[in-house]
């Protein structure tokens, strides 16, 4: 029983990060109909910026804020410079461009920061809380991870539901031409959407890096997990992305906790889940419509 609780807690914490990363993918998909394969590299770049600051003696929190801000800027620049020319064109062009960006940013990280494994600190302890006689797998750091993701999601809900900018961003996502006729600066909204998505992606990257080793490609598995979570939820639904992330986190945690040599099977399990979803419910678990484009 205690083992089950621990595996579940681990799954939920990991799932939260997958949710955040999936949310970043969904934000971009909704507004520009592009799957941003470069999301992982972009997050890795900002994580390395944070690491450089920490190694230079800054506090974790300063590094966090700077990393998120650089995510914002990076997202805006990528949209403006690289994505804008392929927006609205054939879908394959955008896919190739984001894949190219994925490789290019990763290479840039290796050039600037080196490709050695470096440990990334956590702001809180990694020792589980004591409950009675047992230590559970919930650590102060996982509380921080869960809280950070929940607060970010709440802020996004407030932005999209209750502000004029959020309204305009949603309108741009649903119908660019009509939004334009109603006076919405659609281009700016798309840039802002990419920037916000990059912030959320960066946060996911920083959270997953905590207490682990980082290297230029450390986000590669997270982009697979984030993509699987987003597809689980239907790619179009932010709620779906969050639930998809949690489901995936739990599923992978059970695979690694209960299947013999399961930890080696985690990546395979994620891909098997992806295949099953695409075969059985290609629109995702939360699909309301029958078919999805692309």
């Amino acid at each position: 029983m205690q083992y089950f609780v621990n595996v579940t807690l681990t799954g939920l914490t990991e799932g939260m990060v997958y949710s955040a990363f999936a949310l970043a993918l969904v934000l971009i998909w909704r507004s520009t109909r592009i799957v941003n394969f470069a999301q992982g590299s972009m997050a890795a770049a900002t994580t390395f910026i944070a690491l450089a600051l920490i190694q230079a003696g800054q506090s974790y929190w300063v590094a966090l804020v700077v990393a998120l801000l650089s995510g914002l800027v990076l997202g805006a620049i990528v949209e403006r410079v690289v994505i804008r020319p392929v927006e609205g064109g054939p879908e394959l062009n955008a896919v190739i461009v984001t894949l190219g960006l994925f490789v290019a940013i990763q290479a840039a990280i290796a050039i600037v920061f080196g490709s050695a494994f470096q440990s990334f600190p956590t702001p809180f302890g990694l020792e589980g809380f004591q409950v009675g006689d047992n230590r559970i797998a919930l650590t102060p750091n996982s509380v921080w991870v869960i809280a950070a993701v929940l607060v970010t999601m709440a802020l996004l809900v407030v932005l999209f539901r209750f502000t004029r900018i959020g309204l305009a961003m949603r309108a741009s996502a649903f119908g660019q031409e009509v939004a334009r006729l109603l006076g919405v600066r659609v281009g700016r909204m798309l840039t802002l959407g990419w920037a916000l998505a990059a912030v959320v992606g960066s946060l996911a990257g920083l959270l997953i890096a905590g207490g682990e080793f980082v290297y230029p490609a450390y986000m590669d598995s997270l982009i697979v997990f984030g993509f699987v979570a987003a597809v689980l939820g239907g790619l179009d639904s932010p709620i779906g992305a969050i639930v998809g992330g949690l489901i995936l986190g739990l599923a992978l945690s059970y695979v690694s906790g209960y299947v013999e040599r399961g930890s080696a099977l985690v990546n395979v399990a994620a891909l098997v889940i992806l295949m099953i979803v695409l075969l059985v419910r290609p629109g995702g678990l939360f699909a309301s419509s029958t078919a999805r484009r692309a």
Partner: protein
Amino acid sequence: MGPLAQPTPTAGSTAIDRTAAPDTDRAPSASLEMTGITVAFGGVIALSEVSLVVEPGQVHGLIGPNGAGKTTLFNVACGIVRPTAGEMTWRGQPLRRLKPHQLAGLGISRTLQGVGLFPGMTVLENVMIGAHRHARAGFGSALFALPRSDRDERELRARALAALSDLGAQQHAGRYPGGLPYPVQKRVALARALVSAPDLLLLDEPASGLAEDEMHELGELIRTLSGRMSVLLVEHHMDLVMRVCDRITVLDSGRQIAAGTPAEVQADPAVTEAYLGDEVTAEEDAAGTTRTDGGRHHG
């Protein structure tokens, strides 16, 4: 009464005045002039030297058989299509390099063929987008939800609700457009165009898909609107056009073949030849009767 309710300035005003800006009693003063508009797509001439003037407070009809260039002219007026030659002025100022997103700021609203509502947003949110340009809080304060933007947001909501209730659609405010009957969706789309209190309203086939009595109501509404704004109307339903328009411009194959009052246009033989003949034939087609060349002598 919404929080935005204004004391109505004149006895003759209708409830619709409530959506307008505080200075409701100003006379509509803006006119749109299009002079010698030519549009060529590659080698195809879509419009050839078309000129029209929408006078303040007038309802100007734009008619013509399918493919006559009505929608192209509309798109020129919206900045979606840039004319190959010709000039456009609005309120006496030349409009060069017009872009669609500038329209709302210029006091011009457009409805679309069909409805063009945002599917994932409630009816109220759809209308709120229409009032977008009235919000004053800047980008930053709106992004970080500062108090000013919060006040803005409430004003926007109230304004949108008032616009909806003027068109009798306020009870649908919280619903999503996809689940509403088509005529209601049309009303919502119209409310979205009117919520910004435009000086010029471009109506693209507002009566399509409406039943007879709804069309009659629409006609009344358009007449009322002309007290506050100019209207440029593209419409296929001849009886509606003849009833509500002050002036009519007739296009055929990208050329302007007639212009004048409804009576003048109806009496014009060129119009009878090019337009009404086709119209009658089309109606006969629709009614399933045999098409004959004799259809041409109608009108």
